[in-house]
Structures are given as structure tokens and as C-alpha cells.
């Protein structure tokens, strides 16, 4: 950020970016994992998100007016994932719970294993339209509030609230089938 017109040094910007990276690596990776449903793609998406974020960090700070940058990061990941699917014209390669080649202990698989109701919920999430699925990932995997989700999806707060409400209602219908 350039408070009062003061230009930050490169080393200061780098330090602040490192802080942002440490604070939100898990958020970006979680979003990427649930978004693409594949461990390797999630790693690539996470790496590319931070590379792109680094390139535009100064401008993002300047334009954020002091607001948290997590929605901006998630939006980068969202756009990269959308580009990936647009280019490949396909949906996530494998269902989330069927991913078996994980390089690290993974809480989701452990949680879901033997829990039919959680499997049904994950299946239902996958069936949702993209925008509803993404809103639920942001809300429940990342703990983002409506305002943050609105910024990440470039929607109004009201539209986001409606989106989440409809996503939950639709999911409820799917799970109860």
C-alpha cells in the first residue's frame, strides 16, 4: 500500500508478501483442492496463484484501501481454475473422496472414511452449479464471511447472501433425495 503517497521499498513489499503467503497458503491450497478435486492440480494452482499474486501485489495493496487481501488471492485462484477448465473443457478430473495419491496426510479423506453422510454431502457439493459450489467452499472450507466471498466472486453482499442460501437449499434437496 502507498499510504500518504509514500512508496514502499521492494524489500518491504517482499516482506509483506511473505506474510500474506504464510497467512493464506492453507486457504489457497484448500480452495484449490476442493475446486479442482485433484491433488497435483491443486498444487500447481496454488503455486501459480502465488506467482501471479506476487506480480500484482503492489497494485493490489494500493487498491485494497487496507481491506484484507484474502478475497483477492482466492479470486486469482478462482480465475486460474476457470481458465484451466475453459482450456480443457472439462470438470474436475476425479471425485474429491476418490483421490488416493496424496503426498501428505489429508484430513478430508480421514474424516469422510466410514461416514456415509459426509460422503453424501461431498457428492452433493460436486453436483452444485460452479458458483454455488465455490461459495460453499469459501464459506465452509475457508471460513470466509459474506463480504469476503462477495469480493472474491465480484458480487454484491446481498447477491452473495442469496447465492449461499440457495446453495445450501439445493444441497439439502440433493442430500435428502
Amino acid at each position, binding site marked *: 500500500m502507498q499510504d500518504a503517497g509514500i512508496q514502499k521499498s521492494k524489500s518491504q513489499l517482499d516482506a509483506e508478501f511473505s506474510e500474506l503467503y504464510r497467512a493464506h*497458503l492453507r486457504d489457497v491450497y484448500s480452495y484449490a483442492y476442493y475446486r479442482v478435486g485433484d491433488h497435483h492440480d491443486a498444487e500447481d494452482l496454488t503455486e501459480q496463484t502465488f506467482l501471479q499474486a506476487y506480480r500484482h501485489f503492489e497494485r493490489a495493496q494500493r487498491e485494497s484501501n487496507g481491506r484484507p487481501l484474502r478475497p483477492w488471492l482466492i479470486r486469482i485462484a478462482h480465475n486460474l481454475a476457470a481458465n484451466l477448465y475453459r*482450456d480443457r473443457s472439462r470438470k474436475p478430473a476425479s471425485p474429491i473422496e476418490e483421490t488416493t495419491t496424496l503426498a501428505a496426510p489429508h484430513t478430508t479423506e480421514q474424516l469422510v472414511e466410514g461416514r456415509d453422510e459426509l460422503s453424501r454431502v461431498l457428492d452433493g457439493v460436486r453436483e452444485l452449479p460452479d458458483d454455488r459450489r465455490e461459495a460453499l467452499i469459501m464459506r465452509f472450507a475457508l471460513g470466509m464471511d459474506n463480504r469476503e466471498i462477495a469480493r472474491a466472486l465480484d458480487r454484491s453482499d446481498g447477491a452473495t447472501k442469496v447465492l449461499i442460501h440457495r446453495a445450501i437449499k439445493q444441497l439439502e434437496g440433493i442430500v435428502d433425495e
Partner: protein
Amino acid sequence: MSEALPNLEMLLREALAPVEPPADLIERVESTLESITALAAEELEAWELAAMRDPRNWVRPAAAIVAGSAAGGALIILQARRRAQHSPDGLALARDAAEHALKDLRREARRLLRVR
């Protein structure tokens, strides 16, 4: 909202639990970022010095930015090639990022020519 919602929201929190990034990803991202930030750091620090007040000195730091962008793109491409056999989609993502870096390179080069 129906009465079933609180239970569903609880299940969603469990099903969509945050995922810890693998250690090798952390190492990979930090290594890449460190490389990119270090590449042109010396030149860019010079950019911040008082010499920048003289427009005749703007050419060299601008070249440093170009070098940084190009090096970043090169790193991305190298990494993509290394991982391509494991993840074809990674190559597409990396190619996008590299294309952005090249666009930056062209923009900076045009700016450089105008300064000259």
C-alpha cells in the same frame, strides 16, 4: 431456511475441512518465490536511490524489471516442464503464467524504448 440447515452446515464444515498443504509444495513455492525476488533485487534497489531523479538513469532499472519478468517466466516454464509428466494440467497453468510474464516483458520493453 429449514430446520435441517444447522445440521447440514455442521456436516459441511466437517466435509470441507481445511486441507494442509503438503510439505513439498511449501518448499517448491517458497523456492520459486525466493528465486524470483532475488533475481533483480540488486538492480531494483538501485532504482530506489537518488539517481532515479535523473531520467537518464531510468533505462537500466527498467531493464532490471524486464530481466526479472523474463527470469520469472523462464522459471515457470522450467518448473512446468519438470512437472509435466506428473500433471499435464500444471503445464497449462504454467504456460498461462509465462504468457503473462512475456506480456509484461513486451510492455516494459516498449516503455524502455519510449524513455530512450
